[in-house]
């Protein structure tokens, strides 16, 4: 039987007295991969932040694996399950890549004996080994984004929430990251990705969620083998 991971019912979110999401209903099965699309300001980032417990919903129900962020003990357990990469990399510019990742690993309470191995693995996956001792302010925007992705995968999370993960990435790194995501899919990791990258990232997802005026529409598409134009037409003509 398929296990329901996310259960969202009639969820609304107000930010600064502005209604961002309204009466949203959504169910996500464990191991599914979802691409969230929509225009700028449509509420993609807010939805991801709500799913990670970073923004409180104004009303409605959000349960992840039967737990809720409203309960402080469960909230801590949930944060252990989720790896989140924000659209703006939350990096300390004076820090080096390695020490930043070590600090994040400590925050994520990775066991001390695994800490170095996990950091090294993340550096390797995101091709950051060569710049591991460089201060973050010396890195290019694309490399900083890879550091951001490295911190998200650091704790080997069961749910990976990525907000515009390929921003600033060159095609080669974009492709290799998509390959890594496919490996994660094989491990039954749930992927929730807000992206406009229709060539590499969106096609690996099971379906898309299109956000328009605060509401969500599920678009089941066979995403693979479509041209960018076909995908765009299907996303934005679907109502």
């Amino acid at each position, binding site marked *: 039987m398929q296990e329901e991971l996310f259960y969202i019912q009639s969820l609304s979110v107000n930010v600064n007295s502005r209604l961002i999401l309204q009466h949203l209903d959504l169910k996500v099965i464990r191991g599914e991969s979802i691409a969230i699309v929509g225009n700028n300001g449509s509420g993609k980032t807010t939805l991801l932040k709500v799913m990670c417990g970073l923004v409180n919903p104004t009303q409605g129900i959000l349960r992840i694996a039967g737990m809720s962020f409203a309960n402080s003990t469960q909230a801590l357990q949930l*944060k252990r399950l989720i790896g989140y990469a924000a659209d703006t990399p939350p990096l300390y510019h*004076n820090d080096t890549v390695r020490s930043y990742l070590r*600090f994040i690993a400590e925050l*994520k*309470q990775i066991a001390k004996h695994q800490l170095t191995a996990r950091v090294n693995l993340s550096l390797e996956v995101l091709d950051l080994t060569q710049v591991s001792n460089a201060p973050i302010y010396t890195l290019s925007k694309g490399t900083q984004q890879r550091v951001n992705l490295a*911190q998200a995968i650091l704790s080997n999370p069961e749910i990976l929430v990525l907000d515009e993960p390929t921003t600033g990435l060159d095609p080669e790194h974009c492709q290799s990251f998509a390959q890594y995501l496919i490996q994660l899919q094989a491990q039954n990791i749930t992927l929730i990705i807000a992206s406009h990258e229709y060539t590499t990232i969106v096609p690996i997802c099971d379906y898309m969620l299109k956000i328009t005026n605060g509401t969500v529409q599920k678009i089941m598409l066979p995403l693979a083998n479509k041209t960018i134009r076909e995908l765009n037409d299907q996303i934005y003509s679907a109502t």
Partner: protein
Amino acid sequence: MIKSIALHELRLVLCDRKTWFCLAALHALMGIIFNWLISIYLKDKIIVTTTAYGITEKIIHPYYAWFSLLILFLTPMITTQILCAEKVNKTMLNYQAAPISTASIIFGKYLAVNLILVLTILSVSILPLSLLLSSSLDWGQFSAGILGAYLMLSATLAVGCGISSFMHNITRSNFIIFLATLSFILLEWAAQYTGSYAMYLQSFGLLSPLKNFLSGVINLQSVCYYGCISYIFLTVGTWGLNKK
């Protein structure tokens, strides 16, 4: 976790050029003040050839009073940098997305600023300790003064952390923490002009308990007062950081 956060903050602060610039400026100012206090002491001709009578009271007491006052006005900058600036730079997300409580975040950051404070107190204590080369010190008054300065500044840092946790604008945060710190000092000044309420107003001031310490009196009431201020503002800070 608190230790990890504190050590990380400490490392970031020590890697920042601004920190070293501020420390250099502080030491230069403290050097000028120390020199000025010594010249006043020598002018008063209190010095005796073998024992320097009253040297702790005449030099070390005002030295730590000046130090406390200078740090008091640096508090907004330090605490804003450690909490509000993290929100502005969006690096607070690292903490918020991690499975740690907001209390750990606040206490970790508070521990970091306390470590910085201890290092600063130790480094500025070299000048007063240099008096040992030519005279002797009243160790009771000396250590009580250091303890008083630490407790008062630690309480002020807690006030700063508490307020900073609510702020999303660096300038506004600096200004409000400065006003809050100033209002604690102004309470004592206002107490002079009030009749029956003077005692109550004075007991809320930050500086009057420090005066006891600087004169060598370790008062448990003053220790509790600074402890309570720290606890209240750190709790407020935890609540402020919990707001999403």
